[in-house]
């Protein structure tokens, strides 16, 4: 969801809500059809292109929608809700996976080493686009999310702070760190192009 698309989507929400069915099941189906692609896209992005991972997140988000009936009746921006919930869901899932990949936990669970590489990521890493994407995806989780939200989705630092539940100063620090890491890796983080 780019910044323009988000704006367009939020504008469309008002009109779309007028067509929103009143019946619960029909309403859910309508919401799924309308927001499935956006949710899946966000999940795919943060999941480094892992389709199965993104499908799990998509399912989790819509299950969460079942448990939040007020959202169904709300006239507020549904796209904002989906964006926030999907991002947070991805963040929690990534953090959980990072914890499970940590050496002490793997030792306690007796789990074998899990590589972050998947067939999808291997296929993606063949061209320059994928190299760039992988470079951002290799950032620490919080920095990665902040980077995508700021530079790809066009969110300002205050919005990012609200969504991730941190202060604006902390988000600024995350973005600065991300830039430093990417620069050290040989990438030019061109603010003019964003």
């Amino acid at each position, binding site marked *: 969801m780019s910044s323009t698309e988000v704006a367009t989507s939020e504008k469309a929400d008002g009109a779309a809500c007028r067509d929103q069915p009143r019946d619960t099941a029909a309403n859910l*189906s309508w919401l799924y059809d309308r927001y499935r692609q956006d949710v*899946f*896209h966000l999940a795919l992005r943060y999941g480094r292109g892992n389709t199965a991972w*993104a499908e799990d997140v*998509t*399912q989790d988000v819509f299950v969460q929608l079942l448990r939040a009936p007020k959202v169904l009746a709300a006239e507020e921006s549904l796209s904002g809700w989906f964006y926030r919930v999907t991002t947070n869901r991805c963040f929690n899932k990534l953090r959980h996976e990072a914890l499970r990949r940590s050496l002490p936990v793997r030792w306690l669970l007796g789990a074998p080493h899990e590589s972050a590489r998947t067939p999808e990521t291997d296929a993606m890493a063949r061209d320059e686009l994928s190299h*760039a*994407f992988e470079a*951002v995806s290799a950032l620490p989780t919080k920095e990665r999310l902040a980077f995508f939200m700021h530079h790809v989705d066009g969110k300002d630092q205050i919005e990012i702070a609200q969504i991730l539940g941190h202060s604006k100063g902390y988000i600024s620090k995350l973005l600065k760190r991300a830039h430093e890491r990417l620069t050290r890796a040989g990438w030019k983080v*061109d603010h003019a192009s964003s």
Partner: protein
Amino acid sequence: MPPPRHLIALVRERDDQLRKESPSLAADFRIRRLLRGAEHPASKSKNSRWAMFCVAFAMLITLIVAVPNDWLRPLGLTARDAGDFATGSSRPADCTIRSLRDGDAFIGPCTLQLGTAAVRTDAQAEVRRTATDLEVVRGRAWFDVAPVAPGAAPVRVHVGGGVIEVVGTRFMIEQGPSEGSVHLLEGKIRFWANERDSIEIRPGQRLRWSNVDSTPAAAPAKAKGPAPSAVGPTAGDAGAVAPDLNATTAARTKSAPVAHLPRSDGGTPALAIEAESSAREPARETAMTDQSVVDETVERVMTLRASGRYREALTRLEMLQERELDPRAAEAVSFEEGNILEHVEEPATVCGHWKGHVQRFPAGRYRAIVDAKIVRLACP
């Protein structure tokens, strides 16, 4: 050194590529089905409530059936304690167990193991068990109480006229609506008419009493016995069975010496002891020839024998032999007794038993086996 690449533009381009991808058909179907599941949230909730109710009901039944009574009494519940029944004996189908607030009531023909007391009752009997004592409310009950360890509390059996204190013996209680009796077969028992007056009964003697609450003139004070903690309802309120005690007693007391225990209030004696010669008769009169009783006893004896409790098994068989048994049952009892005697008696005694058996049952079912035993023992 390669020139720096414009990262953000590349990432956006790649992100646009990802945007064109969609969830797989399988995932799409799975999520849609999940959302359709919310179509009837009320009915789903109703179903889960039903499932919870069924689970709770099953747990309650399990609790009542499986948990011992002592655990449930504080909750106002009682359960059938299968462990109370003698191991190896079967509870007759007509034996009814009713849970009371302070214990259990066993109604009808039952074979029970209540603590150290083995109890058998007839069809009209009702025996109750409280936390500490037993009570014969009505009908006939045969008791076989294992010897009580020194220092341990004796077994107390409440009857209409007082309390019988037992330290290990065999006896039969007969309780009617207005009077009752106890016939001592073996050992010694003490009958407490009230807190001060007691009488000791010897083997073969029979003690009769008038129920405390059915003969107020004879026994104005309610008998409590040495430990009145568990006195339950008396026979006067049961009143469904009336063994013909008066007739049999009247006939016997003409020829049998009778001893009376004076009541503490000096009123009409309500207790009478009959001597052995007359007391044995009613036991025969009331003997139960029911084959099922014989079968149960033999089954119990086999269990005792299997666990090496030969003397107890012999006692059981002797109790059974005091009844009028049909020849078939009598032969089975005699055969079983001989088998047990082989474990506890000298060969001469065993030989004597087997020879007596052959004489009593010359064409019996066990004749071939007994003959083989006589040969094996080299009986003279």
